[in-house]
């Protein structure tokens, strides 16, 4: 579908949009109006947005245009329309985390990353859909609406940042921020044919992120190119004293890392990540590895022997932390509160009515794992297994610089295809370990299946070495990426 606005700006890159605004080729208001019109025309079919902040976006765009007219210095994202996963709190703009328990809540402050984006001149166009409290792999757990995969509307966009990935792929924003606790940026990025970066734990502040599992959660960009991801990441990364786990480390200019070179780079291939996957995905990852070798990289076969324990460790650690974090949703200070005669009944009814099935399941699982007498057998055991998984990676990075794996074992699946919770949990099997070990990871499109669904290649790197991931990711993008191919289902070319 062509843009219903006066511009055809919907697929402009982040850097190109900001450059054109700064050069006066186009105003931020024109970009914003075109994007709002496109969302109005396309999103009924896609279902990516939970809230569109037309007034806020117009005001922010007018401010950028006023600054330019006054010859003031513009930020690196001036005029760039960005959508936020609805777990990032936004001052004056409803934030639901995809849950009925927060319906109607208007946060009184902006998340750290939202402050950073606004300061860089970005236009926040709205909040996008996700699995409730970021718990899920298909966005089917949203309490509000399904989001469709722009490449095939009968398929899910992945999750939990499914609204982000779908909106970016369909040109309903220039970029989006998501969160990744076990693959929630990389897996939907792979399903929707976009780039997704999960930064090193502590690289990006979690202040103002609705918490799911605090030792695993990270905010990161979903974009249509690696260069866009680098630009957004260098904008949002950095120390924040309001997050006690924020790393006080310098942030490189990630955009400068994109040299196009991988000569001498050692690419690890861990056998455990190539045991079970669809044939089309295996072929695409093989093609990706070969392309890197043709450009001077070396492949290193290695083993991460504790990989099979990542899934059980994750599904003990993450629900345990979730059960603690979600205790705050009790009807006292904000959100849903049904009538009740005493406090205990109020807690139980608020949470029983406000939470959806998957959130309840994880709260129950986490409460079970943390229960007196069970802590050592479950939570402590899982944290010990995390140490084993981390040691596997530490050893591997003595022999290689990055690891190359498929992002997912299958391409996007159809709505309702995962019959049981355990079936759904398997969708994250290649992405979980990265979070358990605190590593950075990126998913880059590396081809389409014969059915026309995107495939993602995942790179995992050493802590704080996002630069190498972005550099190698850009080479993959140039060699085997999707080029100018756009979604064929929703939001693609006419």
């Amino acid at each position, binding site marked *: 579908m062509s843009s219903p606005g006066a511009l055809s700006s919907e697929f402009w890159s982040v850097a190109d949009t900001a450059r054109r605004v700064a050069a006066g080729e186009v105003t931020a208001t024109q970009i914003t109006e075109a994007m709002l019109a496109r969302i109005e025309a396309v999103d009924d079919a896609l279902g990516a947005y939970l809230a569109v902040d037309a007034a806020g976006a117009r005001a922010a765009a007018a401010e950028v245009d006023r600054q330019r007219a006054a010859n003031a210095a513009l930020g690196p994202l001036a005029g760039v329309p960005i959508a936020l996963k609805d777990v990032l709190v936004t001052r004056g703009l409803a934030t639901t985390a995809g849950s009925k328990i927060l319906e109607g*809540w*208007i*946060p*009184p402050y902006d998340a750290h990353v939202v402050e950073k984006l606004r300061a860089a001149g970005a236009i926040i166009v709205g909040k996008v859909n996700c699995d409730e409290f970021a718990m899920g792999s298909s966005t089917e757990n949203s309490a509000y609406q399904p989001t469709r995969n722009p490449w095939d509307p009968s398929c899910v966009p992945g999750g939990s940042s499914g609204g982000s990935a779908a909106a970016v792929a369909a040109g309903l924003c220039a970029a989006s921020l998501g969160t990744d606790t076990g693959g929630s940026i990389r897996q939907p990025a792979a399903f929707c044919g976009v780039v997704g970066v999960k930064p090193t*734990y*502590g690289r990006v502040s979690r202040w103002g992120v609705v918490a799911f599992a605090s*030792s695993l959660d990270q905010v990161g960009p979903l974009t249509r190119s690696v260069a866009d991801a680098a630009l957004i990441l260098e904008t949002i990364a950095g120390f924040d*004293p309001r997050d006690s786990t924020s*790393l006080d480390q310098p942030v490189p200019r990630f955009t400068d890392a994109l040299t196009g070179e991988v000569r001498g780079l050692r690419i690890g291939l861990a056998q455990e990540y190539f045991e079970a996957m669809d044939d089309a995905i295996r072929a695409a990852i093989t093609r990706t590895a070969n392309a890197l070798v043709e450009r001077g990289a070396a492949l290193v076969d290695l083993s991460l022997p504790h990989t099979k*324990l990542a*899934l*059980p*460790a994750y*599904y*003990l650690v993450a629900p345990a932390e979730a059960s603690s974090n979600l*205790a705050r949703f009790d*009807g*006292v*200070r*904000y*959100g*849903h*509160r049904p009538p*009740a005669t*005493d*406090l*205990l009944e*109020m*807690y*139980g*009814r608020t*949470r*029983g*009515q406000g939470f959806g*099935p998957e959130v*309840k*399941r994880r*709260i*129950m*699982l986490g*409460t*079970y794992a943390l*229960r007196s007498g069970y802590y050592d*057998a479950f939570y402590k*055991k899982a*944290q*010990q*297994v*995390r*140490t*084993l998984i*981390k040691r596997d990676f530490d050893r591997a990075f003595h022999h290689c610089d990055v690891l190359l794996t498929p992002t997912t074992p299958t391409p996007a699946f159809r709505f309702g295809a995962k019959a*049981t*919770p*355990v079936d759904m949990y398997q969708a994250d099997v290649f992405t979980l370990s990265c*979070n*358990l*070990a*605190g590593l950075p990871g990126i998913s880059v499109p590396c081809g389409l299946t014969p059915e026309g669904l995107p495939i993602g290649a995942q790179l995992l790197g050493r*802590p704080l070495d996002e630069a190498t991931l972005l550099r190698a990711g850009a080479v993959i993008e140039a060699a085997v990426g999707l080029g100018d191919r756009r979604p064929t289902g929703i939001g693609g070319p006419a």
Partner: protein
Amino acid sequence: MPALTRKEVEEIALLARLHLEPEELDRMEHELGAILEHFAAIGSVDTSDVPAMTHAVPMDLRLRSDVVAPSLSPAVALAGTPRRDGDLIVVPSSIAPPDRTGSGSGS
């Protein structure tokens, strides 16, 4: 890891302050049991000499200086509160209301 009994599921729901309808309890009993069974492999891993992870990336937790800084006003902070009385949040009683008939034991 053993399958969960209905009684255990009810106890966990109470601990989690989660009111579940009878059909939810039925489903939870079945699903949680299946999940725990699937993840039982973790129990057989020898971790006797393995420290539990505290931070995935090495970091020292730090203290902030104890200084007064700008913060939200009570009115703004409490704007989303379901029920309030001035700057106080109102919730139902946590214990049974006092007996006002005079028949209860005095002290």
